[in-house]
């Protein structure tokens, strides 16, 4: 049985700066990384593989250089990867993205019975948390978001027991399969690639599926198929703080002052 895990290559947002003049993202020289949430989706797929013997395929929609990120998936032990890359996919919003991903998953599911699609909770650049649910809806999969533990999988009855992490509580759910899971970061600690696996992954082929393979209507994908347009990206203006007290000569008094100020602004609870 098959697990498809969805991975997005994102800019390392801690290194992204906003251009103060144009108020747009300055992405030059910013390295790309695997979306941190997706490292946990990947790890959970591999753990399920270790526990139940699933075949794991990692897919990503992105530019041709996203193969680097897929190679990282190979280096930790996925069986196969597919890169979904075509100019026609570019500029996609969550609707168009989930359409392409769903189509690719459906193709993979033709060869092997689909058990799970596993996504990260959200990305660190788009932050919508919609792509996973979008895939589930299109493919009519059970949809279990914010999973922080996979308790058991019954391969014959095709049912899985999962725990969801919600605000202040947990929810234990039993789901039919195939199911789409999005996972939170607490679910696991990702493994570290060994050198032999890294070397093998470095020259493994990364198959690319473009729209000739998927054959989707170009009006429904990429920029054209995206009802959402991001008009402007900007960082909110932060007010400059003030320097209070004299930390060098009166550290205790200054600390008191600071605490009072924070209480005043209701930033501290007593």
């Amino acid at each position, binding site marked *: 049985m098959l697990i498809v895990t969805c991975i997005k290559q994102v800019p*390392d947002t*801690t*290194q992204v*700066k906003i251009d103060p003049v144009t108020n747009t993202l300055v992405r030059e020289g910013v*390295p790309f*990384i695997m979306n941190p949430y997706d490292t946990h989706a990947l790890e959970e797929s591999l753990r399920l593989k270790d526990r139940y013997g699933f075949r794991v395929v990692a897919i990503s929609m992105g530019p041709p250089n996203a193969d680097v990120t897929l190679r990282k998936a190979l280096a930790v032990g996925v069986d196969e990867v597919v890169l979904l890359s075509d100019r026609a996919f570019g500029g996609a919003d969550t609707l168009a993205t989930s359409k392409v991903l769903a189509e690719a998953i459906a193709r993979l599911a033709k060869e092997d019975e689909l058990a799970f699609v596993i996504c990260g909770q959200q990305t660190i650049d788009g932050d919508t948390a919609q792509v996973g649910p979008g895939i589930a809806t299109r493919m009519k999969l059970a949809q279990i978001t914010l999973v922080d533990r996979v308790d058991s999988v019954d391969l014959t009855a095709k049912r899985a027991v999962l725990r969801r992490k919600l605000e202040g509580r947990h929810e234990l759910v039993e789901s039919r399969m195939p199911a789409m899971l999005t996972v939170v970061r607490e679910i696991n*600690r*990702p*493994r*570290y*690639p*060994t*050198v*032999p696996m*890294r*070397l*093998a992954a470095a020259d493994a082929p990364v198959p690319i599926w473009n729209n000739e393979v998927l054959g989707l209507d170009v009006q429904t994908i990429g920029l054209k198929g995206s009802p959402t347009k991001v008009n402007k990206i900007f960082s909110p203006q932060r007010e400059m703080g003030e320097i209070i007290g004299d930390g060098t000569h009166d550290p205790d008094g200054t600390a008191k002052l600071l605490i009072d100020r924070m209480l005043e602004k209701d930033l501290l609870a007593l």
Partner: protein
Amino acid sequence: MNHPKIFALLVVISVVAFIYSCIVRFRLVSVGKPSDRISRFGERVWSMLLYAFGQKRVVSRPFGLNHFAIFWSFLVLALANAEFVVSGVTGKAVSFMLLPHPVYAALYLLFDVISVVTIVAILIAMGRRFFCPPKFIDALSRDAFIILTMILGLMIAFFGTHGAEMAARIAEGKNAFHYMPVSSAVAGLFAGMAPHAIQHAAVGFWWLHAVILLSFLNYLPYSKHMHILTAIPNCFLRSLTQVNTLPREAFTKDATYGVGDIKGFTWKDLFDSYSCTECGRCQDVCPAANTGKPLNPKQVIHDLKLNVLANGPALLEGGKPGVPLIGTGEHGSISEDAIWSCTSCGACMEACPVFIEQMPKLLMLRRHLVETEGKFPEELITFFENSEQRSNPWGIAPAERTKWYANLDVKPFDEHTEYLFFVGCAGAFDARSKQVTVALAHIFDAAGISWGVLGRDEKCCGDSLRRLGNEYVFDRMVRENIDTFKTRGVKKIVTQCPHCFSTLKNDYKQFGIELEVIHHTELLQQLIAAGKLPISAAAQGRLVFHDSCYLARHNDITEAPRAVLAATGAEPLEMPRHGRESFCCGAGGGRMWMEENLGTRINTTRVTEALAENPDTICVSCPYCLTMMEDGLKDVDAFDRVHVKDVAEIVAEHLREAVKK
């Protein structure tokens, strides 16, 4: 009658058995990888003379002189025993008696006296083990007592034989040999015995001597006293580089990464395990062993030996090892907890009288765990990911490397700059260490030297990565840094951190770049000596200096920081363990990035030692030491009365007002 034929037969059997045991054991060493331990022959011979024959390291510790006495007696008596065998086999036809009288008289005088020295030394050794056993040796080990008893037995048999023979001569009315005073005295004990009884006693003691000697020979290869055979060569074969930089790795597909079984070690590593004297000195100085961690370098070497003996035969036949090298820590395996406890401080190697290289072995095992198995304490994954993605341990954005000089006039390094100031990750990101960095910047400007920084292009030097066994990422990091050095024209580097210093200086050489690297304390010493730093010396309270392992032990820099401190008017106090014998702060070997869950804390041990000097200031020369000492002071509630300062900060405080910014 001494029965020369029977004795000859016994000698042949013993010697054949001994040679066989040696071949069986030493052949196992050949499963290891090659390692060049012959080049620089002259230095090696010298090292052997100094450390094996001169016992330089042995005598540096209590009871070392005792060992010196036993060692030299042993060499001298080897001659006596050789004669014993030859004369025994030839029915006394060939012996030293054939030599001119003065020569053999002198020889026998020597044997006679030395044998007494040996008895005294052996009794001292036994007494020490009984009455004041040091905690770092297995004082009452059977092995030790068997050997000590055998040597004692040999001496008794020696005097018994010669005493009885002498008594027989006297009974015959001949003179005693005046050149064997002790044996002559022993002869007195036989006085009054019937002549044939004396004869029997002489023969009896002679055979006792023969049996002990031949047993001893055959016991050696199976005991810790195998070091009698291996210690001298081990001093010849020792690593001649000051720092035990680990070998580079070829990242080809069919290679192995790190050491997972004894085949991965070099033959010298395996030979080391045969050379251990179980003296326990490494254990005595090891910060891990001293704070209740499951690492004991002596045990590591012992387990390695057991592993070689257990797996060697199968591996020689091309088979698979049966006993894992990394395992439970019992019966010839080394536990992961032990492997991860090492701070790479190098104290074990500094203490070992026979130059066993414990630390690099542990680090090679780490490599295997990280690179081949992906197994390591879980907190390290963040460190590894951060290093790989953002080129620093904390995972802070590289752009923030420039933050410490946001309000200072610091120039980027270009081809006209003399020194690259390699700030280091701690120096650029750690709030406390940034103060040291700023102090250094002021000092460099005050001295008017030409210096610059790489800013956001600087990457971690990779020290912790390498010591933690992540050679793959280290390798990449080094090549990237070297590219930057080459394109920017860097030739001279001054570092704030001893780890950057040692890594850039020693490890980077393996990557084909020769840099002139200098630690800030050395540069400050030079600047002061050249009169370029306007310092006004002033008395300071009680200041105790803590040596960094990577400066003092790994790079032999102990004078520079002290000279600099003296120039500021400080009179640094010394802890009992200082200079090359310094005790680690606990942060080296990548331990900085790991939890210290086992045993007690290394830094509090060291801070307690420092506090015994009743200091106002603990002075350091390393950002890791700075953190560890400050944390240690907090742990023992002394942070509000004792300050921790870097040498550079103390110098900056004493720059003459005129040049202060």
